[in-house]
């Protein structure tokens, strides 16, 4: 059975119909529409509590001008969390394993923060290229390094998310394949591998949520720098 482990990352097409749109939009169905009820159901209460607390945590250190970005950033976070978590189930496709998908979020958002910074407070934005109290000898080198680090941010954002999720999915596939192969020959090893698989699943759930939060946190930090 020539199994290619990267087949799970192929864009899903079923009988010629590309399903990528469905795969991207379906996680939206897992969260509830806000109701006009005053005391809501448990799920709805928890969802609003999650949204409110994460909005507050992300935007508390930011200036009030940047609170216009709240809707974009928090909805991006919820989007990424649901996509990542649903991708952990078997036989699913995770759009965030595609670099193009993640770069499409990272690059425009990062570029927007940089342009805002250069337009509204250019001196302050350029001042970020040099950390405080550096020895005068190092200043030219440091500016070059900081510029490179600034320009590499979108790539870092996108690749971080892609790499984490891809690696996680690959690991799950590999370990479950090992377990599947060994269960008829060495069941004991297969059980140990099964335990490893359990722990890995817990890790992957954590990573899925943390990576989405980190993506959005870094964006808010770039925003804080520039606005």
């Amino acid at each position, binding site marked *: 059975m020539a199994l290619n482990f990267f087949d799970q990352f192929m864009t899903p097409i079923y009988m010629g119909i590309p399903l990528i749109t469905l795969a991207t939009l379906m996680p939206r169905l897992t969260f509830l529409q806000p109701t*006009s*009820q*005053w*005391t*809501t*159901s*448990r*799920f709805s*209460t*928890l969802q609003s*509590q999650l949204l409110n607390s994460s909005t507050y945590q992300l935007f508390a250190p930011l200036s009030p001008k940047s609170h216009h970005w709240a809707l974009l950033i928090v909805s991006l976070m919820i989007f990424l969390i649901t996509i990542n978590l649903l991708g*952990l*189930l*078997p*036989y699913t496709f995770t759009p965030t394993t595609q670099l193009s998908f993640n770069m499409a979020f990272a690059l425009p958002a990062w570029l927007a923060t940089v342009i805002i910074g250069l337009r509204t407070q250019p001196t302050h934005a350029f001042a970020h290229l040099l950390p405080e109290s550096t020895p005068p000898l190092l200043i030219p080198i440091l500016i070059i390094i900081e510029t490179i680090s600034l320009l590499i941010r979108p790539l870092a954002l996108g690749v971080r998310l892609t790499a984490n999720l891809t690696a996680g999915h690959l690991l*799950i*596939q590999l370990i*479950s*394949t090992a*377990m*599947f192969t060994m269960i008829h020959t060495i069941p004991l090893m297969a059980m140990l591998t*099964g335990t490893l*698989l*359990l722990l*890995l*699943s*817990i890790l992957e*759930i954590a990573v899925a949520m943390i990576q989405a939060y980190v993506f959005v946190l870094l964006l808010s930090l770039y925003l804080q720098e520039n606005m």
Partner: protein
Amino acid sequence: GLVQASRGLHTSSQCLAPMPPMPEHGGKVRHGIFPEELFQLLYPKTGVTECSNITFSLFYMLGTGLLVYLLSKEIYVINHETYAGLAMLSVIVYGVKKFGPQVAAYADQLNDEKLAKAQVVKDLTLNSMTESIENEKKEQWRTEGRSLLFDAKRNNVAMLLETNYRERLHMVTNEVKRRLDYHVALQNLKRRMEQEHMINWVEMSVVSTISPQPEKESITKCISDLKALAKTSQAKATV
């Protein structure tokens, strides 16, 4: 019931009914996914006995048969993803069983806090309303005694007036008496002075008419008279 705020007033026939009250508990489920009503669909047709729950339940038969069919015909192939799915499923089930009640309690606590805040406002309003009702009743009771109050006040005022009047009357009497006393004293003084003057004048004229000789004779006569009187009075005293 609560009326939807999105509906205008009397613009069309009502399509959003008043919201029904929320149920106390969620729907009962079996094995976390299948609603209990599913298993009770055929009870009217097949009847219910004590073993109709699991052993001969039609949906359990259907489920088992379906699963065995899918596996034996290899419509569902067991591969590595089965094990990945089993691992993920066990993690999910463990998480739900262990943390489910806590999370539900937290959600309930959030809702209860919201309700409690509103309840505080409601209680405060109710209390203030009851207090104002009692105050109003007290005021009404107070107005009943209004006439007594006015009578007392009227009496007070009348007494004050009376007292004032009597004071002034006394003052007038005293003043008049003073003036009359003055006149009386004046008359008495005048009379006394006239008497004294007359007495002096009489004494003077008598003294001027008395010569020394008749004066001596009259004095000796007086003394002898006095002695005789003394003897008679002594005699009377001893008797």
